[in-house]
């Protein structure tokens, strides 16, 4: 237990901050994922074949390739790509991007592919009559989306989005390979310097369990809120 003490004698405070980092990365990645889903869901649902192909390419590739490989691509390729863009503007110095940004971007792209599938499924399972009825009533396209489709879609999407959240939360453990100090990386450091890997990795497992448990509780509440009246 003294290994977990706060302050200089133990790893308690380090692990606490690492947990906050895991939460921060997961939330950032989830939001980046939503942005990607916002772009790619309409592409997948579009009536134009060529747009469908782009949307399908994104979800198929990301969901078919290991997360770790995507992270390596961003980790090794990220600063190269930024430097390439910067060189077009006449900036030739070495640019190193922060591990937090690379990590949440990599996980965000992965999470986005899953979110896209969830949103696509949710929109497709809304009764066609809802679209037609609102059209007949002369409701404008964007009001139709925000007031009629979105509320119904969210109710259907929340259970599946909670799965995406769980996947995203667990995927953040992979960012530890890039050196970002989140739960896994901190446990690795602590295990290395105390020679007690069993304790620290088990504790990491407990922290992840706690995070998944608490977020499930929270999401269940949301689910109840959005399924009122059904």
């Amino acid at each position: 237990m003294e290994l977990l003490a706060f302050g200089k004698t133990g790893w308690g405070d380090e692990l606490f901050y690492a947990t906050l980092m895991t939460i921060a990365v997961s939330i950032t990645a989830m939001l980046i994922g939503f942005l990607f889903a916002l772009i790619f869901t309409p592409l997948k649902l579009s009536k134009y074949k060529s747009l469908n192909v782009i949307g399908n390419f994104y979800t198929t590739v990301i969901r078919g390739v290991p997360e770790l490989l995507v992270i390596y691509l961003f980790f090794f390729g990220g600063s190269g790509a930024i430097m390439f863009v910067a060189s077009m503007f006449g900036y030739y110095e070495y640019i190193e991007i922060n591990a937090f940004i690379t990590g949440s971007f990599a996980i965000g792209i992965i999470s986005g592919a899953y979110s896209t599938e969830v949103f696509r499924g949710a929109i497709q399972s809304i009764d066609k009559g809802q679209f037609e009825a609102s059209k007949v009533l002369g409701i404008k396209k964007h009001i139709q989306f925000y007031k009629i489709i979105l509320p119904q879609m969210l109710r259907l999407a929340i259970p599946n989005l909670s799965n995406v959240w769980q996947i995203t939360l667990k995927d953040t453990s992979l960012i530890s390979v890039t050196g970002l100090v989140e739960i896994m990386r901190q446990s690795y450091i602590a295990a290395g310097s105390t020679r007690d890997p069993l304790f620290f990795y088990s504790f990491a497992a407990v922290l992840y369990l706690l995070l998944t448990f608490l977020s499930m509780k929270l999401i269940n509440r949301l689910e109840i809120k959005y399924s009122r009246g059904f």
Partner: protein
Amino acid sequence: MDLELMINSFPKLLNATVVTLKLLSLSLFFGLFIGLLFAVMRMSTNLILNKFAYGYSYLFRGTPLLVQIFIIYFGFGQIEFIRESFLWIILKEPYWCAIIAFALNTGAYTSEILRSAFETIKKGYIEAGKSLGISSKIIFYKIQIPIAIRQSLPAYGNEIILMLKGTSLASTVTLMDLTGVAKYIISTTFKPIEVFIVAGSIYLFMTFLIHNFIKFLERKYNY
């Protein structure tokens, strides 16, 4: 684009794919047995067995696979009892540690898939079997299991693909699987995009094959 690198790295990556496939097939093989065992325990009326199986699947599905591998590979070596027993022959090898972690992990997911498949079997089938005087053992093997396998095929196909991606974590415990070799080539040549395209295509090709194989089975066992 460095086409030469892509062509040169292809045979190396293909060699590493063999390791990935070995890891995948062994962990799926053991995982299926673990999954079946825990699915049966989940359905048992014995409260202790039931709770134990629930806790098992909660634990393995609620924590990242990376933690599980690290506990088994780095953690278990620390226990003196294990180091002195015959288990050490297996647990000192990263290869077997990875397979144990993967099998336990996929076992947890498989048990959930099988449990829900067993639960969706119509009671009428079992009752019909009983009224024909078939013993409950044979009902289980000849009626419940075949139906449950058919029911769980789509979900299990997804699980195989998730596990294929999961095997990439073997590279974190020094194994040179497809991702491990890809990372090695990237870090020596600093050409991430080229290597990603080649390694990613191999993964996608395997996903494609698995997906179609499961589709084929689904059609074959349709009823």
